Structure formats: C-alpha cells, structure tokens
C-alpha cells in the first residue's frame, strides 16, 4: 500500500492531501513522524485533492506525516466477545483485555431499515420508576431522550433504567464523558451485575470531537447486529447527545459549511434522525431501544438540539429539579401497552391522577396569588403534596402494580368516589374498601354517566 506524503493543509481536525483512486468514506491511517498514528476518514474528494478528518484530532500533526488509504470504510469489532469490554469512542479496546483483532467486524452507518420490516412496538419495559411506568411508559424499540439540564441526576437515571430494564444486551455510548461520569457508569454496571452483558464505547471529554462523531454510529452498528443476527433485545444508552451535536457543529464550521441556526448546520435533523431511527422492533428478530440524555443549554427546549430531537424521538422524559415532570414528559408509544400489556385500570388511574395534579398546580397558583380557595382547592392541594411524595420523588422505586394500588389509595384519601369521575366497575374493583364502601352505592349513578377519559375540564 502506498504511503502518501505532502499534506497541504491542516485546519482543525481536517487535513488535505493529494492522492488518486481514493474512495469517498474510505478509512485511512495517518502516520506522524513522531511515531503517533491515527485513523482518519475521507470526507470530500475534489479531483485528486482528498479531505480527511483525523479521529485523534489535528493537534500535533506534522506536514511530514504520511497517509495510507485502507480501501474500506469504517468498521467495528462485533461478536459476543465484546460483552463486558470497554472501547474507545472509535471502537478500539481500551481496557487492556484480551486481543480482539481477529473477531468479525461490521460496517458502521450502514443502509437504513426497510420500514416494511418493522413491527408495531408492543412490549412494556418496566423501570419501577412510577413517573415512567405509570404515566409515560417506556416501550421496547422506543427512541426517547431524557431532556434535562446540567447538574441534574440524569446519568443516575440513565444507569438506573439501564439496569432495571431486562434487556439481553446493554450498549453504552458516552460522548464527551468526564472521567468521573465514566467511572460512575462503569462502577454501576459492575456492581449491579450487568457488566457481563454490557459493552461500553466511551469518548471522553478530552478525546477528539471527530472521534465523538463516530461513537453513536459504532454503538448502533453493534446494537443492530445483535438485534438482527441474534434476535437479541438490545438497549442502547447514549449520553450526552448535545455533546455529539456540538461536535457536529464544530466540524461543520471547520469545513466552512453555512450554519442554519445558532451555529448548527442545516442537516442536524437528518443527522440525528439517521441515528435515532435505528431504534426498531424487527419483524421476526430482536429489537433496538434507544434511551439518551440530551442536556438543554439554558433549560431551553427550543434550543436546536432538544428541538430537533423532539421532532425525531417518540416523546421525551423531562428531568428537572430532581423530578420527571409529568407534563413536560410524553411517551408517544404508551397507548400501545397501557391496558393491554398492563392492568385494565392503568389508563384510567393515570389520567385521573394527572387531571388532579394539574388541578393541584392551579390551586397552588391561586394560593400563591392569595385568591379565595374552595373546598375542592383544599383537597387538590392535599393531593398535590401526596403525589409529589409518593410518585414524583426521584428515589421512589416501586413496581407498576404496586404503584397503581398506591394511586387508588391516594385518590381515596383525597377525594370522594364521585369526584373521581371514573367508571363504576373500576371504582368497585379497585378503590380501597374502607374509604369507598358507604358512599359508593349512592354515587355510582353519577360516575356512570361520565367517561374516564379526560372528562370535563372546565377550567
């Protein structure tokens, strides 16, 4: 293989060199005179002028460096032997474990999935976090981000869901991760006993942004392979997608592309969608579920990264002030499992509680403005307090059915049966006896006339 010399330009992490017969997207190795080598990828061809991005970054590259083109696109090692291992953001083992160089490789960023080969998602993933399981269910093959802000326990939440979900394989991708965060994930996966079915790809905060661009593709290629070839149910955890988007921005600017919005390029939507759309329940095979963290600069959901993400994903969990906000959060797939894969009363209890919680927030507003409070307002305030303690608190860990029972109990403690505006048969079956027994007979008729779905919301 030819060593090409004569680097013409080094700009950021991008170099230009003259060479013939080079393929678009091809992988190359850059050999610096100081002995350092780095992989690089062809990102533009203009006659015999070749533009490459260097994964380890442009810093320290000499014009005396040589480039060798490898004749194939970027690939990553993929076999069962990668489980329990840690790799760099470019897919190189970094844990000092056994050599993997003879293992099979898969192409990254391969063709997209034929929509015809997808099935409608239908399996609930239980996380034992009531704000998720009860109000915004996570469904197998869903793609959903945690929208959050710096300082919130988003990595804890991500790890907790990862461990709780009973996935066959966990693929973790860290982009721009601090060492502490990396250590937290590594340690948690180890101590919770899931490490043997986990593979980690970590691009550290100190690693190059070019490498950061590869990390999601590498993780997803591996996940997809496990799902398609081995019919495994794979959960992909990625944090932080904003760091990834910022890397895209940086490289775009170095390439002198014209940004469209706050410095981000016009193709941010397509770029993110190309990754997120790999979440899939494959017809007759496994599945890929994607859960990510998207930190929102300035807690602004209209910032281009969360905004474009929201247009792509199937809802979002909004984590702020150590709670998962029931209003800002949405699982667009929840209707596929509620009541069919979960208990019959699930939908009704969840809707009723959310309705009352919305009422509670209104009452709190009235209270703070010193407006008159009615009896109902007082009840709502009490409910609001209990709801926060029993369901919203970040540390609550409770199985779905227990959470539903607790929901009934809380409702019974705060309201009379007729105020619930729920179906008679559900009230009879689930409302705790003591609270309900006497009132029930008389009030049934009222409840009967009402449907449980989002009833009269006059104010």
């Amino acid at each position, binding site marked *: 293989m030819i060593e090409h010399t004569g680097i013409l330009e080094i700009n950021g992490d991008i170099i230009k060199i003259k060479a013939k017969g080079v393929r678009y997207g091809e992988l190359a190795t850059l050999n610096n005179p100081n002995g350092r080598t780095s992989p690089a990828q062809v990102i533009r*061809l203009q006659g015999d002028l070749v533009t490459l991005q260097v994964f380890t970054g442009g810093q320290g590259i000499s014009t005396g460096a040589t480039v060798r083109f490898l004749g194939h696109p970027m690939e990553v090692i993929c076999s069962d032997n990668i489980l329990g291992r840690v790799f760099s953001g470019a897919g190189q083992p970094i844990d000092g474990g056994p050599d993997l160089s003879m293992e099979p490789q898969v192409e990254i960023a391969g063709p997209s999935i034929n929509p015809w080969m997808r099935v409608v998602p239908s399996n609930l993933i239980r996380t034992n976090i009531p704000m998720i399981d009860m109000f915004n269910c996570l469904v197998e093959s869903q793609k959903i981000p945690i929208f959050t802000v710096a300082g919130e326990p988003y990595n804890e939440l991500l790890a907790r869901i990862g461990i709780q979900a009973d996935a066959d394989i966990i693929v973790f991708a860290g982009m721009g991760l601090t060492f502490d965060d990396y250590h937290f994930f590594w340690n948690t996966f180890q101590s919770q006993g899931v490490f043997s079915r986990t593979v980690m790809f970590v691009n550290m905060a100190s690693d190059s942004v070019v490498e950061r661009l590869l990390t999601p593709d590498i993780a997803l290629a591996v996940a997809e392979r496990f799902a398609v070839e081995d019919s495994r149910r794979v959960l992909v955890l990625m944090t932080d997608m904003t760091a990834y988007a910022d890397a895209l921005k940086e490289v775009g600017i170095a390439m002198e592309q014209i940004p469209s919005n706050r410095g981000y390029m016009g193709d941010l939507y397509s770029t993110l969608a190309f990754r997120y759309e790999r979440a899939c329940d494959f017809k007759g095979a496994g599945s890929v579920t994607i859960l990510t963290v998207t930190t929102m600069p300035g807690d602004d959901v209209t910032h281009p990264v969360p905004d474009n993400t929201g247009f792509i994903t199937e809802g979002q969990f909004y984590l702020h002030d150590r709670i998962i906000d029931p209003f800002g959060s949405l699982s667009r797939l929840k209707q596929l499992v509620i009541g069919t894969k979960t208990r019959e009363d699930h939908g009704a209890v969840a809707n009723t509680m959310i309705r009352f919680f919305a009422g509670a927030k209104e009452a709190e507003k009235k209270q703070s403005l010193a407006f008159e409070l009615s009896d109902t307002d007082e009840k709502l305030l009490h409910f609001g307090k209990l709801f926060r303690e029993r369901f919203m608190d970040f540390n609550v860990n409770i199985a779905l059915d227990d959470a539903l029972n607790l929901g009934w109990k809380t409702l019974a403690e705060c309201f009379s049966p007729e105020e619930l505006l729920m179906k008679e048969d559900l009230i009879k079956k689930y409302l705790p006896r003591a609270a309900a027994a006497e009132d029930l007979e008389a009030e049934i008729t009222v409840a009967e006339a009402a*449907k449980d779905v989002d009833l009269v919301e006059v104010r």
Partner: protein
Amino acid sequence: MVNTAIPTESPQLESALARVVEVNANVVTLELEQGNLVKNEVAYLAVGDQSLKAEVIRIQGNRADMQVFEDVKGVRVGDRIVCTGELLSVELGPGLLGRVFDGLQNPLADLAQTHGFFLPRGIYLDALNRDRRWTFTPQVKVGDTVQAGDVLGTVMEGQIPHKIMVPFDQPHRLAVSFIQEGSFRIEEPVVHLQNGSGDSIRLSMLQRWPVKVPLSKDMQDRRLVERQYPSEALVTTIRIIDTFFPLAKGGTACVPGPFGAGKTVLQQLIAKFSEVDVVIIVACGERAGEVVETLTEFPALLDPRSGRPLMERTIIICNTSSMPVAAREASIYTGITLGEYYRQMGLQVLLLADSTSRWAQALREISGRLEEIPGEEAFPAYLDSRIKGMYERAGVLRTRDGSVGSLTILGNVSPAGGNFEEPVTQSTIATVKVFLGLTYNRAYRRAYPAIEPLISWSRYLDQLQDYFRTHLSPEWVEKVKFSLELLKTGDTINQMMQVTGEEGIPLEDYIVYLKAQFLDNAYLQQDAFDDVDASSPQARQVQSFLLVLKVLEAEFKVATKPDAYGLFTKLTSLFKNLNYSVLDSSDYQRYEQELETLLDQNA
C-alpha cells in the same frame, strides 16, 4: 425483475457519458465526456457492480452537479456515469392503490422480499407489477379520433374504475386503429393510434410521467382540460375543521405546530375519515414507526363509504427521516404526480404530506452542498417559489370526459422551536387557503386536536358560502363567525381573571367565559381514541352545532358564579357523553333530552 444494470428503457432518448470529478456527500460533480447534458435528467453512477440513481441539478460548462439518491460511500474520482436524458419519472397505471413506495417509487414490500431488513443501495424494482392481469374494457372504437387525456378504456382497480388515457403530453390528434378487450398485463399493447401520415404508436396500460412537471399543465395550456374554482367542502369529520376552518376539494391547507402537538395524529385521522376517493400519504422525512402504524391499521379498517378496507383507497409514499435526503426531496413530487393522475380520472384525491419542513430541509441540505448563496436560516432563495409551485399543483379540474376531479393538498409544517416566524411556515401561510395552527399550549392541556381557534383561519368559509347555505343551514356561516367571536371574548375575559381572580369580574362576563369554555370542551375538542367521537360526519355535525348554539345563545338565569359553574359543568358533561354515543341511539336521545331539559330549566 431486479434491475441493477444501467437501464436502457428509453432508447429514443440521447444518453451521455461522464466521469466523477468531485464528491461532497451526496452531491457529486461530473465532467462530460460525450453527448449533451439535460437539466434534471436522471443519471446512473457506477460504483463497483452497483449503479446509483442521481439527478442532474446544475450544469456549468462541461461540468454538472448531481444529487445522488443513495449513500455515496466508495465512489471514486473517475467513476463512470451514464446520463439517461430522461427526467425523474414515475410509473402510472392500475395497481398503484394499496401500495407502499419509497420516494422514488420503489415498492417497499417487494424490496423486503428480495433484500430483507435493510434498504440496499442501487436496487430499483418496477413500481407496478408486470405479471398481474387487468380486465380492460374499451371506451373508444376503431376509427375514433382521440387526443391527450382522452379515455381509451377502463379497468376496475378494486372499487375504482381506473381510466386508461392517451398520454398527457401527446401533441397530436390521433385515430384509433386497433383496440382490444380482455385481460392483459400492463405492458401489453391494448390500443394502436395512428397519425395523419400513417405512423402508429402502441399504447399499453402503463405510462411514465416526470414528477416535477405538472401532469395536466400541457393539456390546460391547450384548453383540453379546465381548471376550476374550488366550490365544495372536503369533509374530514373533524368538527373543528369542518365547522370552523373548512377544507375545500381541490384546495390547500397547512398544519404547522411544535413537536408533539399532534400533527401526525391529526393527519392520520384525516386520512382515515375523509370523504374522498383516493388518499395519498407522503411520509416525508418523519418517523418510520408512524408509517408502520398506518400499514398495520389500514388494511383492517373499513372505509365507511365503500365498505372496503381503507388500504384499498390509499397509497403511501414512505421516505422517512433516515432514508436518503435527495429522495425525500423527490418524494412529495412523486406523491403529487400520482394524485394528479387519479384526479385526471375525475376522482377526488387528498394528498397529505408529513412534513413539508423536512422536504424544505432537504432543499437546504442540497443547496448548502452546492454552495449557493443562502437566504434566511440558510434556506435557499428559491424556497418560497418551490413551496408555491408545489401547492399550486392542487386544484379542481374538469377532465376530457367532462368529469370533475380534485386534488387537495394538506401539508404539515414543523417549525423550529414551534415558532411560526420562520421561512417555511411563513411561505406556506402565504400560499395556502387554510391555516390550522397547533400550539404547545393546547397540546399541553391535552385539548386535542390542538388546533388553536384564535389563530387559525380558512378562506373557504367565505368562498364556499353558497355550499354551506344549501348543504348545511341557511345561516351557517354567520353562526360560525358568531361562535368564533365568542371564543375571542371568552379568552379576553379569561386573561382578565388571571389578574383579578374570579371575584374581579361581573357575572355576565363570567357566563360568557363559561360559554366559550363549553364550546371548546364540548365541540372543538374531539377524542381521537374513542370509536364514536373520533369521527363526526357532516349530518351529525350540523345537529351538534345547532345544539351547541342553543347553549351559546341562551340567556341563563343563574344567581351566582358557583351556580353558573355547576350548570356548565353539567352541560359539558352531558354534551361529552352525547359525543360518545352512537348517533340517534337510545343513549344519544337520552342525553339530548336531558340537555334540552336542563337548558329549559335555566334559560
């Protein structure tokens, strides 16, 4: 059937040879070696043993830029390109209905059968099945003279009489010299036509048409067909649309809204329940999962008008967000061309595009790679004219046999940050006749469909006055405007209450506010997940709206605000239950009766 080699389908067209000189993602620059270049022609780029479809979009000297419809990994400078001279085209003929195609009309089910889970590049299958037979019934006889767009015969495509027509760009009058009845494959000649000098052409049931050229344009210029003014409402069975912001057959509409506001759910409802003959869904740069839901649901649902599975009247163009972006740009035109084709048969066609913003972004991505001078938010300067040109393909058309067809276009718009002050939303609003603005606020309150009545509008409410007078009720339009006014007043009062509390406003104002809330809760909102409420046909809407008006126009004699509140709570609850009851069922009658009684007692 699998067509991986470079096709030689149009031997009459000149083809040119060229080589790759530059590659910038999916924009590839070529240098011409032989022949001529044609703007917007299709070219095939050879990579190894594959050939990738592309479109020539800019010509400069002997160089040209093309957008490649596929991933260009592995392309080298010097790779060979064959230019076909043919514009990007689709196949037209029986067998389109009920199918799912990508943006270039590749049939996805067939691709899944031949290639499994993924969409490999460089594979182009026939859009229409070549082996299936259709029973052709001639409508003309030997000796008749025909011209562009004339009906030669029909075949039954499911429930729809599918007209086989003279090619729409045929410049001459021709004599029928041969026509046969019977069962044929779509490529078999069924008719021969002859010109004055005795040259004859053979026509089968299959035609091709370039997607970026309006199908009836040429015939319109020659006065063979006539564009008409929309004059009939398109009934979607969504109350807030049909009553307050109506669509017209042959009209245009847009649905902008932030993410999660309910654009897609609304389009799915419209696709399901609209009273039209053909629905074309263009899933343009959005989630594949949403298409899968439609695909799973539609074959099992029946079209109430025909009693046949909904899928039989539906075509899905599926170029979702992870599929190549250049094909996304083409996908809307592919959908529109199929729509124009069915309109040409005198049918009522509805095209739903989700989302036109993704299409506009595709234009932006390509424009950026061409290093064109960017406009606002880096969109190209021609964004506005492209949007106008796209919607202009909607319309009502009197066809050659006198039947009147329509193509209605409804496009979703996904404005960044939900802010309507951005180029795509602004150009779209300046183009369409109906604006259904979804807001985060209403979605957050779960007031679905989250169309904000205070900002939405429809030009057809006035334009179709005569239709509403004769079909619905004599004072319909006035009453609708009265109700919209009431919503505005109610909102003003509500804002006042935010400052002063309930105690700060007079009882009369409070009642107006409650009336506005009632109209919103009982009529504007509609439960998409309830079997009955999901769809409210026109006749039912008229009944309901007249009943709502009784409440809005009543003078209530209540003494206190809590009394008024209690009364309206009951009215709303009764009305919601009425909405959930099957029309004229015993429940329906009971709730209606109770409502009337409650009204009589208090007004």
